């Protein structure tokens, strides 16, 4: 390379930089934008990034499982102004009502101007936590019980029934798990986790995790939680690991001295699928107004099962005198929830008395 070439090159780079800096200034550049949440909190956000990044830079963790690729649809926020047009990728996750209200996926909204967004207050309380694995025990052939000791922050506040998102190391993706321990236990969280074949996080927890490992999670999230102020009797329907949030709620109710009547209907295929059965039976013995029923859908001969069998949706009407004056908490696989919803609405239970969490 001759000196002349180098000279041209430098001249060219300087020229381009000058022109583009000029353009950059004219177009607003990467200056700081303002992000206003719920009209009261204003935070800085660097222009050019996504809304999701801007939120997490400000330590606001909204649910997101795919790492900002627009494939999970969890990071919904309401953008009141300044988000630009909806992009085609988002349309798969938004229904018509949400589109009209201006709901967007935070990972697809670019920060190009000042933004005004609204989101539920409790999302603002979600934080990132570091925790140590304190216990990891087998409950049955495919389910483990995980206990996490919080390291920083040292305590967490949540409502019984809510979930957290555990970060899968290496993949940097999140997976949601309901908290199974009561909210009074602020420094230790418990989970019931079933191994799903080829499942990213469940394989991690079942095959790779050891006691003493440090993992990260964010939370708490979710609008499936106990309605503390309601005086209605409570009916819990769950299947398999759906018992986790129910356990949290029941233990919380027990600590409150069982203020209302409560009954838990818990189903599994065989006796082996029934998790943490003794714990609920013990609470049942201590409190007259709490009952728990176990329903097996396909008991094996070895189970020597003499209790309820068949569908949980058939069992509930058998023991409940009236259905429409109770409050329902459903947690389990989608098929179970859908079947239960159909039965309940047929019996005239108003929708606002039903809360559910699909696993």
């Amino acid at each position, binding site marked *: *390379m*001759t000196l*002349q*070439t180098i000279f*041209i*090159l430098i001249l*060219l*780079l300087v020229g*381009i930089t000058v*022109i*583009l800096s000029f*353009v950059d200034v*004219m*177009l607003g550049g990467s200056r700081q934008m303002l992000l206003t949440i719920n009209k009261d909190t204003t935070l800085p956000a660097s222009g050019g990034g996504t809304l999701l990044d801007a939120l997490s830079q400000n330590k606001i963790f909204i649910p997101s499982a795919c790492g900002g690729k627009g494939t999970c649809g969890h990071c919904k926020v309401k953008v009141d102004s300044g988000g630009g047009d909806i992009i085609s990728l988002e349309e798969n996750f938004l229904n018509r009502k949400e589109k009209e209200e201006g709901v967007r996926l935070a990972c697809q909204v670019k920060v190009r101007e000042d933004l005004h967004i609204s989101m539920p207050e409790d999302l603002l309380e979600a934080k990132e936590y570091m925790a140590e694995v304190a216990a990891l025990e087998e409950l049955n052939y495919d389910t483990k019980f995980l206990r996490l000791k919080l390291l920083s922050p040292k305590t967490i506040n949540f409502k019984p029934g809510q979930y957290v998102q555990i970060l899968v190391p290496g993949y940097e993706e999140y997976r949601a798990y309901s908290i199974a321990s009561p909210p009074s236990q602020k420094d230790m969280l418990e989970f019931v986790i079933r191994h799903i074949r080829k499942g990213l996080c469940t394989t991690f927890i079942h095959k790779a995790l050891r006691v003493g490992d440090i993992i990260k999670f964010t939370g708490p999230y979710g609008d499936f939680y106990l309605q503390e102020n309601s005086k209605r009797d409570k009916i819990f329907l769950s299947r398999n690991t759906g018992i986790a949030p129910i356990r949290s709620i029941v233990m919380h109710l027990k600590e409150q001295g069982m203020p209302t009547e409560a009954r838990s209907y818990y189903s599994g295929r065989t006796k082996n699928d029934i998790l943490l059965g003794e714990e609920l039976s013990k609470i049942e013995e201590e409190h007259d107004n709490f009952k728990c029923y176990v329903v097996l859908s396909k008991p094996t001969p070895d189970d020597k099962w003499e209790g309820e069998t068949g569908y949980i949706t058939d069992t509930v009407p058998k023991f409940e005198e009236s259905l429409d004056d109770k409050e329902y908490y459903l947690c389990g696989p989608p098929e179970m929830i859908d079947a239960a919803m159909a039965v309940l609405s047929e019996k005239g239970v108003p929708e606002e008395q039903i809360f559910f969490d699909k696993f």
Partner: protein
Amino acid sequence: MSDTLNIFLASVLTHNIVLVYILGMCPAIGVSKNLKTAMGMGTAVIFVVTITSLINWLIYNLILVPTGGEIISLMVFIITIAATVQLLEMLLEKYLPMLYSAFGVFLPLITVNCAVLGVTLFLVLREYTLFQTLVFALGTSAGFFLAITLVAGIREKFDLIGDPPKGLQGPGIVMIMLGILALGFMGFGGMVDL
């Protein structure tokens, strides 16, 4: 005159940049979902290719060759393209908002479109004159427009009735469409040559 027509027809048909040289695949697969966006992209490419190849011809022949700087020509070309695209976007947004709304959104995508750099490299390789460059640039970008519009048209119809196997959905089936189109374009072979 025959030379001009020759270059134009050859770059549209027998030497189509997408279907024969296989350049500009990202937009041909990514932005060909419907006819309207495909035509917007095509128009933007016509604009950018014509302008950048003229500028690059001037820079190469008037600055780089006399000073012996051919070795850095690659870097110069790509920077010229990137800068031109950015300037063009800004100017259009400010002074011709109608045009900008029609295909402005596609402009930023063009910087990384290898068809644009490809045209510049070909014209240097073939030692075209300034006028030939203009014709070649117009022809090639028209060829790009033609190809992406054809693919988009097929995709629009195909989406209504087509039900490819799961692994072929998306880019896979588009490649097959491109393959069939490329087969068809081989039929132009021998009509004109460069």
